């Protein structure tokens, strides 16, 4: 096993626009599968895009950004950092 650093960019492979989730989860949001440039596939939320199929294109370039995990904390009050996908400016 070797450590491998994923790049911070990729392209949208597939998605779903989630309008109903479990109680307490904010909707709508875009659940996205992204093929990372140079290898690897990630699943996460596609943000800063209209939750509308007309606004989302297969293979659209995205960047991987990091932020607080929507304010979620575990049982001990710890905060978490999550990754998100954001369209690369001018791509859509």
């Amino acid at each position, binding site marked *: 096993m070797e450590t491998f650093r994923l790049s911070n960019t990729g392209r949208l*492979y*597939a*998605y*779903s626009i989630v309008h109903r989730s479990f109680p307490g989860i904010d909707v709508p949001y875009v*659940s996205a599968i992204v093929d990372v440039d140079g290898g690897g596939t990630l699943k996460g939320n596609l943000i800063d895009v209209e939750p509308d199929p007309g606004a989302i294109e297969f293979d659209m370039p995205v960047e991987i950004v990091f932020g607080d995990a929507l304010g979620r904390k575990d049982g001990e009050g710890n905060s978490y950092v999550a990754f998100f996908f954001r369209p690369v400016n001018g791509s859509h």
Partner: protein
Amino acid sequence: MDAYIVGVDMIKFGRFPEKSVPQLGAEAALLALDDAGLTIQDMQALYCGNLNQAGGMVGQRILQQIGQTGIPVVNVANACATGATAFREAWTSVKAELYDLVLAVGVEQMGRGLLGGGASRGISKEGLLGSGTMPSVFAEAGLEHTRQFGTTFEQFAKVSVKNHHHSTMNPKAMYQIETPLETVMNSEMISYPNTKLMCSVNVDGAAAAVIASEAKAKELGLMSRAVKVRASVLTSDPWQERDLVMPDVNTCTRKASKAAYEMAGLGPEDVDLVELHDCFATAEILHYENLGLCDDGEAGRLIDEGDVELGGRVPVNVSGGLLSKGHPLGATGIANIYEVSTHLRGEAGPRQVEGARIGLTHVIGLGSACGIHILESAQA
């Protein structure tokens, strides 16, 4: 030695909170035994499929209801392939000539609401790292098909129109309600492109089958309504690059269908009807191609041109499918065997596929288990 289904039935699917899982399973077991004209005293083993009480010895508790004869009981859990797996274990025991008369039961009692997501330590990932709900997972699989072949929301929705229409002719389905295209497309959006009417119904249900060796079926005089098991195949998913984040719902079906056609010495062109795993409308489209009912990229045309409707070239899910008959996880794989057997016996009433001689049943447990059976009428 070939193995035959000599008794098979299911309870009407619905919501029965006043009943227990073993009660539901016992009802189906007795229906299947009655169908064969046999009793639990005649059975040499019981293979019981149930998912939500997988640790609960459901098979033994069914026998507490219908007769504790001391036979071996095997309890099986394999996600949505649970029922088909129980049936296959029963079939395997007859093929191995260990027994010549056995019972398979599939049963499930469901809650309501979304399946999937899963438990996690720390914080919930749902809505943070995408969605793990089943409607979303199968929406993503459907849009992978859109990405490849341009399949439209409307084409996915037509699957639901068709299956709900079929279920109006099936008194054992949960629903008997027509849902026109506009109704399907305008119902609550759950996970685009799956609307609420494009998601399978969570119901309680049970189905059972009695399997006999050819010699036993002849000895008992049961060949006239018997159904021959031409192929029984179970696969798991091979490694695939996107596995960790995107369950591959296609490859295990492709492997299973190829193996099943080979075992039966048949091809998809020989199949008169199919009951496939339409857990979501998007999934049915994928499986037309995975089962070889059409070439890759042709699934949208198949639904547009009516090939898969009752009266079409190869009717799919004439029972109403999981979308309208309902999807009690552990029962589904035997309920679809009941449906195909009923057509092969010419006993399906208004929804009968005329002249049906060969039928195929298919279930998948997410991406990781696929069960396929090819069945043939035993009448010459």
